[in-house]
């Protein structure tokens, strides 16, 4: 709670304005009925028109003040709350940027996104409006309850009588309604899931002409949803009429006791009207207050999850005395590296490897052999547990993350692209690149013709995550992106299945160009890449079990030979 509040308290001036606005708005709204009562009981009776004019003008001024202060209150609370929300979202995002790859591997992206959106929205409800509003309502109830006793004790008691009934009724209703609506959420999500499946599976349904059966299945779900909603509607429909009836009952009680007293002559009409008006002031606060618990609970749950992320330290950080990695030649050395993702399950045990500048090394091995781990350690997506990795003789832990990663290019299997044009994506690693440089890069890679053939060429929008391009096109764009960034060291996590043989033919050349003059580590799957590598490393359970060129290793007829038979050759799709 304190921590949530601290985001608001960051704006002390606003907080003070909000408090003043809230307080004055409450005072003005409670004062107005008094003026009305005064008009009826004093000015009406005396017939003093000047005094009456003053009273009614006072009433109008009060009304306008209520308006202005509510405006001020609404504006400042939103400003305060939304600024807090802005800050929370921004700092959560910036924190997430510093988290290491280990975090992203063990946390689903869906849940992280949900922290950034849904959970912060929940807090937003409390921060902008919810909190202030609730306190305001609380003060109104409290204020009204006190004020009404100053006029007439008996009627005050009667007026207050309805408040607990109102509160209890609302509370009970909420509980039942929540249960009813939980059911409707279940049924609607089933309907949605069925719609989603139908849309994605349209082709299969058509191929096997199963339209009728699909329709029947959908109808069942649709019917369930109908029933659940009708059931829920019963509760929902009864709530407001019931609440209003309780309020009406209050008015009737005031009328009943009040009327008798007027006949007796112990009560004026003005006071009667005053209490009738006061009765209606209780509604909103009670309804809002009974919901306060839910708002707070939901906001706290959101806050807890958000703060949990903010409090987790990034696993990989710059050392305080980190230096810039400059003028890289590209010599890489792994010295006695130990690494485990969890506890003591070492993926790499005492791993040693030296790569000369400009050398292309292909790593092959079964899934889980540690291929990806080897490269993930190099750009410090993860931190080694013991031993060290050196580039040009400098321990990579002693240089800044920024300069390290700027010197290492990464081309990924799933070739992630960003929303924007092809051009934007190619210059992602070097925003200042000219159009000519971009075109040059695609020519080298062999993607130029392909891009030119697209309707808008280099200005084609790639869509969310590059979805509007084919896999092969995405791969080529990511090659060009890496080439343009021109890093001294290149890591290539090879795409196995995304390139067809025609593109493969085109790419072979481009890939050679990309690797030229760089130290390259390739997690290799394709025969052509492997054959062209200077050295092939066979990884097994985190150890290099064989090393050499394709011809050497094939001649040995051992590990590489069997791996080749089992995996690599089939992938060439030549039988």
């Amino acid at each position: 709670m304190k921590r949530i509040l601290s985001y608001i308290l960051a704006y002390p001036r606003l907080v003070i304005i909000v408090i003043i606005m809230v307080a004055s708005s409450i005072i003005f709204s409670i004062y107005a009925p008094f003026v009305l009562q005064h008009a009826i009981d004093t000015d009406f009776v005396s017939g003093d028109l000047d005094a009456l004019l003053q009273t009614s003008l006072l009433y109008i001024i009060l009304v306008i003040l209520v308006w202005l202060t509510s405006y001020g209150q609404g504006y400042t609370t939103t400003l305060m709350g939304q600024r807090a929300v802005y800050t929370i979202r921004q700092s959560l995002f910036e924190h997430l940027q510093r988290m290491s790859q280990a975090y992203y591997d063990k946390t689903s992206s869906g849940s992280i996104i949900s922290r950034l959106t849904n959970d912060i929205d929940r807090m937003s409800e409390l921060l902008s409006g919810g909190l202030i509003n609730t306190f305001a309502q609380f003060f109104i109830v409290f204020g009204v309850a006190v004020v009404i006793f100053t006029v007439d004790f008996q009627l005050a008691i009667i007026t207050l009588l309805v408040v607990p009934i109102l509160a209890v009724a609302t509370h009970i209703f909420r509980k039942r309604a929540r249960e009813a609506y939980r059911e409707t959420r279940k049924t609607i999500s089933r309907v949605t899931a069925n719609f989603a499946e139908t849309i994605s599976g349209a082709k299969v349904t058509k191929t096997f002409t199963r339209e009728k059966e699909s329709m029947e299945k959908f109808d069942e779900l649709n019917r369930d949803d109908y029933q659940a909603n009708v059931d829920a509607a019963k509760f929902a429909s009864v709530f407001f009429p019931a609440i209003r009836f309780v309020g009406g009952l209050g008015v009737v009680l005031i009328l009943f006791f009040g009327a008798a007293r007027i006949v007796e002559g112990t009560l004026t009409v003005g006071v009667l009207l005053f209490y009738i008006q006061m009765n209606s002031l209780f509604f909103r606060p009670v309804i809002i207050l009974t919901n306060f618990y839910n708002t707070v609970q939901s906001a706290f749950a959101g806050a807890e999850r958000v703060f949990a992320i903010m409090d987790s330290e990034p696993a990989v950080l710059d050392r305080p005395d980190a230096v810039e990695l400059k003028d890289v030649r590209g010599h890489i050395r792994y010295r006695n590296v130990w690494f485990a993702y969890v506890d003591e399950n070492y993926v790499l045990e005492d791993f040693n490897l030296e790569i000369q500048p400009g050398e292309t090394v292909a790593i092959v091995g079964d899934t889980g052999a540690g291929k990806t781990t080897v490269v993930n350690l190099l750009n410090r997506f993860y931190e080694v547990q013991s031993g060290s990795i050196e580039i040009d003789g400098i321990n990579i832990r002693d240089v800044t993350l920024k300069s390290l990663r700027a010197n290492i290019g990464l081309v990924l299997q799933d070739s992630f692209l960003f929303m924007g044009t092809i051009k934007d994506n190619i210059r992602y690693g070097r925003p200042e690149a000219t159009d000519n440089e971009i075109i040059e890069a695609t020519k080298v890679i062999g993607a130029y013709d392909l891009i030119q053939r697209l309707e808008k060429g280099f200005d084609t929008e790639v869509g969310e995550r590059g979805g509007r391009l084919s896999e092969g096109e995405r791969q080529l764009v990511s090659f060009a992106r890496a080439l343009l960034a021109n890093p001294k060291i290149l890591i290539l996590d090879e795409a196995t299945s995304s390139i067809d043989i025609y593109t493969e033919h085109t790419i072979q050349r481009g890939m050679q160009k990309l690797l030229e003059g760089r130290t390259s580590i390739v997690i290799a799957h394709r025969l052509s890449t492997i054959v062209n590598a200077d050295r092939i490393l066979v990884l097994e359970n985190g150890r290099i079990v064989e090393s050499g060129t394709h011809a050497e290793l094939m001649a040995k007829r051992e590990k590489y030979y069997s791996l080749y038979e089992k995996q690599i050759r089939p992938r060439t799709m030549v039988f």
Partner: protein
Amino acid sequence: MGHIARLTRYALKHKRHFIGFMSIASVATLFNLFTPLVLRDIVDQVTSGANFQTAIFSIFLYLSLFGFYCFFDFIQRYLSALMAQHVIYDLRTELYQSLLEKDLAFYDRNETGQILARVTTDVTTMRQFLLWGYRVIFIGAASLIGTYYVMWLINVQLTLLLLPILPALLLIIYIFAKKVRPVFFSARTQYGTLSAVLQENIVGMRVVQSYVSMDRERERVRKENERYLGLVVDAFRLSAFYSPLLIAVLGIGTGVLIYMGGVQFSAGVLSYGEFVGFVSLVGMLLLPARFLSWGIGLYQRASAAAERTFYILDAREEIMDPEDPAEISDIRGEVEFKNVYFSHGGENWVLKDVSFKVQPGQVVALLGRTGSGKTSVVNLIPRFYDVDSRRVVEYNGKVYALDNKGHVKIDGTTYHEHDGFIVVNGEELQVQDPGHIEIDGVDIRFYKISELREQIGMVHQDPFLFSASIKENIAFARPYATDEEIENAARAAMIHDFIMTLDQGYDTEVGERGVTLSGGQKQRIAIARALLADPRILILDDSTSSVDANTELQIQRALENLMRGRTTFIITHRLSTIRNADIIIMMDRGRIVEMGNHSELIEKEGMYASLFQTLSRMAAIALEETGGRVS
């Protein structure tokens, strides 16, 4: 207007509920309107010195009027919920039906997420309108008028004096609809943009970190975040300004009422009761004003949502059944393409003048790079799309379609057809009649679509399996197949042994909630599915394979079992399959560039020959060290 009117037609299908809730809402409003009159009587009775008994009677009248009002209010709410739910049920059924009937071109044009939103989120928005919209607008308007009428009954002069409140309220309602809500809407849209940027960053964090572009992304997020902050604050500021203005206007009205009421009271024209009644009536204007404003908001949103949803119902069906379908009970499986042209959206020509003939039982291998048109060829056979039905001319290798008057626009100039020719720069271009596809000598458009598709089986590289058991997935085309038939199909598809290793065997759930299968396993389940369906014509997409040798062998055997005795179109890079195919079709940019069997094409020394060389070279490297085993 049009969209809501259309929605209302759906509502009027449930006349009993619709008329029921409207009339009960009217009754409830009436009861509510008369309570101030009773209030007036009560106050007048007690102030004029009449006995308390009369007042008690009036108080009970007040209570029962109010009680009835609440009761009828409950009934009308419930009825309108029933009505809304009925309409939503109908609408969803219709939407679902229409989704099933859509051709694939529809699914190509519209993104999955978009379609889904239109049939879910947008429908929910319409539901809100059905639930609240009609009655709040109706009750709002009726109460505003009714309240003034009751005022008129009490005191004409005061009523006239308070009349300006009405236009003031309407003005605020108008401003809300025109000025305030659009800002809320843009804030919502901006939130969508912000979420998209955040999402992209989280999913692509590896790329962001490895290109060291954190600062740039942070700025991007900050920009969107700031824009969102600005819009949200703007929206709430406007709403905080105009929303309490409604109350203020009524308050000012009350202020005027105090003075003029006092003047009339002193003159003896107005009683206490009448004054109290008036104060209460002015207060009663607030609810209908809010109702109207809210109703208009619902209307705006529902109208936009309805437009999006009805788009799905209205998207024109391009592929339709013939009126008098041809008999298809026993086809042989002869397939012929005759001068087929095909375009996406009428302009992107994907297939140009494609003609070939396949005898029953022959195997056709389709070759060509991505975008060459080979996938379109196979998609046309089951009529996922239809052949372009316009007449066309070709000029400089480009295709131009004629409109039905025989006009065609080439490079900005319009030309006219004469006797089947068009003359461009002195060059005579022959106009091509629309092409078509025949199965067993009959244009496929003469068959009933469902019967045609029953004759065609498709197996994809990465097939779509439904969230259901393996058994249900295999028996997808024939839900009443016996367990034995299903098992036989699975055996022939080389997947039976694997299924038996699963805990629940054939009853194992697959898909989102079930077990995850590898590509090779899914492919073989799809083969079993096709085997059980037993089609005459087969379409196989086997272009990208990355499975180990053992699986590869199993898939190949499964495919051989499947292809036996069926006309087969296969998209593949498998050398042996290509070599053994009866017809090899080599495609490039929408055209057939070479066609024939392996030895014919090798002799030609064209594109196929050079591709085959590349493949063979790779095969040579692959086989060199392994003793030259050739399968």
